[in-house]
């Protein structure tokens, strides 16, 4: 994909928020997420010329972001200690999506990455396995475990939302 500097600027501006959000979804730390997203964008800028199919861009970008975030997460927390309680509960709107956020934060790093690639980036388990270097069977298993935790969290949220709506109607 041939691209000049101005186009690259535009692409990075469009790409950045998604890259940051995915990195934050995995790392749950603003500083680390920014670092991972910067690294991913630098890789995108460096390798974009080698990308043959423009329609594959989004999936390609997500893979790079996830890999950068996993690398950084493992280096920063050698034993994957990202689940420390002090690093949870960061959200721009604590009243919403908190259960889902905490459920995601409680997942191990690899599960978190698989969840984001599957549900946010739309990759199937074979593509996730290819992107992250995990065995496909392991990806399916990780997704199944993650799904259980997230369903429970989401059910709690939906219940809380419906109670809130009922309370509003009562007033």
């Amino acid at each position, binding site marked *: 994909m041939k691209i000049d500097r101005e186009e690259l*600027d535009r692409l*990075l*501006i469009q790409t*950045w*928020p998604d890259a*940051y*959000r*995915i990195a*934050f*979804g995995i790392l*749950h*730390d*603003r*500083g680390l997420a*920014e670092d991972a*997203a*910067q*690294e991913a*964008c*630098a*890789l995108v*800028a*460096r390798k974009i010329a080698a990308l043959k199919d423009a329609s594959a861009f989004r999936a390609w970008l997500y893979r790079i972001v996830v890999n*950068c975030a*996993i*690398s*950084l997460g*493992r*280096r*920063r*927390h*050698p*034993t994957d*200690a990202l689940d*420390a309680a*002090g*690093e*949870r509960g*960061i*959200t*721009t*709107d604590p009243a*919403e*999506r908190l259960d*889902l*956020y905490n459920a*995601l934060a409680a997942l191990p790093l690899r599960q978190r990455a698989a*969840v*984001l690639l599957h*549900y*946010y980036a739309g990759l199937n388990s074979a593509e996730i396995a290819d992107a992250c270097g995990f065995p496909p069977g392991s990806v399916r298993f990780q997704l199944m475990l993650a*799904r259980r935790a*997230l*369903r429970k969290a*989401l*059910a709690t*949220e*939906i219940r809380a939302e419906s109670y809130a709506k009922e309370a509003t109607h009562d007033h």
Partner: protein
Amino acid sequence: MITDAQIRDGITSMLQRFEAPAVPLDDIYRRMSASRITQPDRRPFVIGAAAAGALAVAIALPVASPGVVQTLEAKIAAILHWSPPTERPSASVYQAMKPQTVSLSEARARVHFTLVVPGGLPADAIGPTIQVAPTGVFSRATHTWSIGPSVVMFTYKRADGRTFALSAAWASSQTSPPSKYTFEDRGVDKAGNPILVKHERFVWRNGDQVMTAIAGHGITPAEIAAIQSAMHGMPMPTVWPPRHGADETITMIRVMPPR
């Protein structure tokens, strides 16, 4: 029953609520041109910092032939206005530098200076976790590493998940001015070039203690100034580039995030 589509919507809507900072185009292009590829690295990271009086910079060089090391050294020296240690610490020195988590009273018992605990911290700082870390000291005269005096690291967590650390060391009477910058050693890239991150340091003295804070590691220069002021610390002038001398020593602190 919660469906896959609901999970997808929940995650998408959650991620879209995270506010992304402004696009750091300059930083991205700088990384791009530096061709630095962050590799998974399970080692704890190491930063250089000042034990009392040492010129406070430290990095590790990649394992390479002497010729390659010379070339790298020249490149690094040209960029950093400073030349790094020519040897890596030996495995035994590196192992001895491993920090240990201790209580305040244990920390006090293990150092030879009067430990002054940080005050005036940001309101959201939680902690500290206290660690005692023996330093690694490289001598330019002998090209050898040895174990130096221990430093005490106070590590705090902030509400947004970032952490910052303040290190306390002994203010030796035979000191040269501390350096203005320190380098975080992030290992090497695919090509074997060292990945170094430069950080500005702020240094102040309380009695026979020298306290160091690194800006950008979860704390801003203004917040560091507030801590220094609350501690009634005497600011120490820093220098850059450091003066190279045969008697120069370089101090390395091994940093492991507290669990």
